[in-house]
């Protein structure tokens, strides 16, 4: 029971490995002056990521290993569960182990890992960042410096039933929440829409709730936290965002069950014909388009950007970025390998294997890829309007506080105004207390 809470190594007094890199960084944004961080050493390294279901990771590594026989990369597979991945990466950082070199970090972990100096600041000029979508690049930054290299992204989209909308004589998917509710009212009059619910996202008390809340707030013109990490949730915009969710639960736009929904629950509800609109990630597209009978909506759905208050809404960003473990060896190899792994060539290859959101703008225009994944143009719009989730180093506390209050509001145990007031207070304490 005890061992879980025990650090494998005491941090006190241990010399910091990346001292050279640190000296070059200095205060935020001042890194350009003075010496640049040095990345030295060539030789075998490791690539650390969650379980790879598609098997394409090893193929990518094989490509690299063929070209660089003396700098081979070994794949270290972590569990599928993101919490477990994060925990193992933190353990590796705290023991200052060199077992992990290049880390596939969830986009929201960047600030935490950078602030603890578990990862090195990266040389921005060595990577083709200008060819990537700007909001995605932002997820890899902490206080103006690049700490993680965009590798794969993820954005929310509105899946909708084309057949039902057509029957109800609705020409366009809704761009605002009001339009969506009006469309639902029309569709529900159809005999085939009996028993259907209007809309669902992810509202179980977990990370998905933070995503959906942040999207609602951003889509109403508000922000959860600003660039400095200061919270701004006690605002009229944020209230309108949360009210959309709260009122939708109250008036039945969102079914009561949705309070237990994670991604897969929503997907099942949509593909068994229980929902007219669904907010989900791109991963769901090929699964719902399967024609083996598992999906009742295979040819009957399409995607649109998320709706908002007065116009198209803003998505949250998911995905993984590549970071360099501060305690690793052979960092020169690692820097090159990260460039290789985040290259367009590799992203095109992974996308051909499994659905996702590439980071390069060019890939969203590729006709061959669009044919395979018709959602790509929508997703690009969604990502261009996207706002990163709060970029604060104590993200775990922030997301816990958001989940606590938003969950209370959507289940009706507190009013949205009170929830936001309490949330603002908690978030302010968290950002001040550190």
């Amino acid at each position, binding site marked *: *029971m*005890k*061992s*879980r*809470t*025990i*650090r494998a190594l005491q*941090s*006190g*007094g*241990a010399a*910091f490995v990346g001292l050279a890199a*640190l000296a070059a*960084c*200095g*205060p*935020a944004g001042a890194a350009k002056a003075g010496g640049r961080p040095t990345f030295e050493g060539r030789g075998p390294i490791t690539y650390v990521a969650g379980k790879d279901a598609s098997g394409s990771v090893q193929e990518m590594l094989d490509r690299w290993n063929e070209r660089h026989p003396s700098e081979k990369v070994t794949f270290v597979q972590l569990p599928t569960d993101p*919490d477990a991945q*994060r*925990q193992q990466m*933190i353990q590796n950082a705290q023991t200052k182990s060199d077992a992990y070199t290049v880390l596939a970090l969830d986009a929201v972990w960047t600030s*935490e890992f*950078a*602030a*603890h*100096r578990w990862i090195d600041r990266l040389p921005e000029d060595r990577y083709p960042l200008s060819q990537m979508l700007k909001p995605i690049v932002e997820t890899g930054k*902490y*206080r103006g410096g690049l700490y993680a290299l965009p590798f794969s992204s993820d954005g929310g989209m509105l899946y909708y039933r084309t057949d039902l909308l057509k029957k109800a004589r609705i020409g366009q998917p809704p761009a605002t929440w009001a339009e969506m509710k009006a469309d639902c009212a029309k569709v529900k009059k159809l005999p085939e829409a009996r028993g259907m619910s209007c809309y669902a996202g992810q509202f*179980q*008390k*977990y990370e998905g709730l933070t995503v959906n809340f942040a999207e609602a707030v951003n889509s109403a013109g508000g922000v959860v936290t600003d660039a400095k990490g200061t919270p701004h949730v006690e605002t009229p915009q944020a209230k309108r965002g949360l009210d959309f969710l709260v009122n939708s639960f109250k008036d039945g736009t969102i079914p*009561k*069950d949705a*309070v*237990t929904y994670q991604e897969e*629950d929503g997907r099942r509800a949509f593909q068994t014909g229980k929902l007219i609109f669904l907010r989900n990630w791109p991963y769901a597209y090929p699964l719902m388009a399967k024609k083996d009978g598992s999906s009742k909506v295979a040819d009957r759905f399409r995607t649109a950007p998320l709706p908002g208050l007065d116009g198209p809404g803003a998505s949250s960003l998911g995905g993984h970025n590549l970071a360099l473990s501060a305690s690793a060896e052979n960092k020169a190899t690692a820097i090159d390998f990260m460039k290789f792994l985040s290259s367009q060539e590799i992203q095109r290859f992974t996308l051909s294997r499994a659905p996702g959101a590439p980071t390069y703008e060019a890939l969203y225009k590729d006709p061959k890829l669009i044919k395979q994944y018709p959602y790509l143009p929508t997703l690009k719009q969604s990502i261009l309007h996207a706002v990163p989730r709060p970029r604060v*180093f*104590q993200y*775990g*506390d922030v997301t*816990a506080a958001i*989940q*606590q209050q938003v*969950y209370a509001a959507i*289940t009706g*145990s507190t009013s949205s105004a009170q929830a936001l007031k309490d949330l603002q207070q908690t978030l302010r304490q968290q950002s001040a207390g*550190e």
Partner: protein
Amino acid sequence: MVTTQNQAAPRALALPAKPPRRRPRATSGTGRLAALLVSPTLLVLVVVVLYPTLVALKDSLYGTPGLNPKTGFVNDTDPFVGLQNYGAIFGAAGARFWNAFWNTTFLTVTTVALETVIGIAMALIMHRAFQGRALVRASILVPWAIPTAVSGLLWRWIFNSNGVANALTGQHILWTTEGFHAKLAVIIADVWKTAPFIGLLVLAGLQVISKEVYEAARIDGAGALRQFWNITLPLVKPALLVAVLFRTLDALRMFDLPYILIGAKKTSVETLSMLAQDQAANVRFGPAAAYAVILFVYVFLIALAFVRLLGADVLGDDGPARTRRWWLPRRRTEVAA
């Protein structure tokens, strides 16, 4: 019994049949040998039990390093904060702590009580001779063999809003949302999983009760209920108490079932272990260690109370004096026979 053939036998033979004498005291030589032989065990215990406990105690006195607002980096060293972590648990985070404390206690009391009743019933069934007994025994043990995490996932399916539980009861309960039903879901899943454990231990206890006792009772005209109350229960008590104690200690540190079945940070089912895990996951090892120490003390006190008040026979003896009185005469009779 074969064991009587070694050292005990000659000594027992030498002893005349009068009240048992104290064993000859160990000489300093045998004492040293004993210490030497025990030392590997002690060493292992020190490394895996004592050291982590002490480090946890020490860690609980350290705080979380703050963020240097100028550089944006977290400081390298943990500040020494004394008992502040404990102060925070009972002060600022008090509501959450006491909620978790009562959840832990409530879940422990209800699950262990239900498991004991159901476990005894299972044991009584398994103990009866009937056709297909082996099959029943094996099938009752299946839930116990399933890893908790897996059974958590399994029950999450059952308690899904479109799951079996709602279909069978004809209700539409959102089990994994906050509320008493979440507690109920955890209790049901836990009882399902661990009642067989108590059943198994009680069965072992039942099997050593000799049939003659029951025969005698029947001749004296005792009914089934009377037999159960006056013979089965007292004779199975040592085994039952150990089983209940183990289950209690296990339930007090319940973590995976509520975490997987209902979810993290759900007020209705948050236990003390989950609080400690939550702190550790957010890289606050000081407060996490403080929670763990409090849980340790709580579990320790409960265990102590069990041993003292109920006389749970954990170590396999009831104190030195009685043990010898119980052992030696029997050896002698065996040898004599």
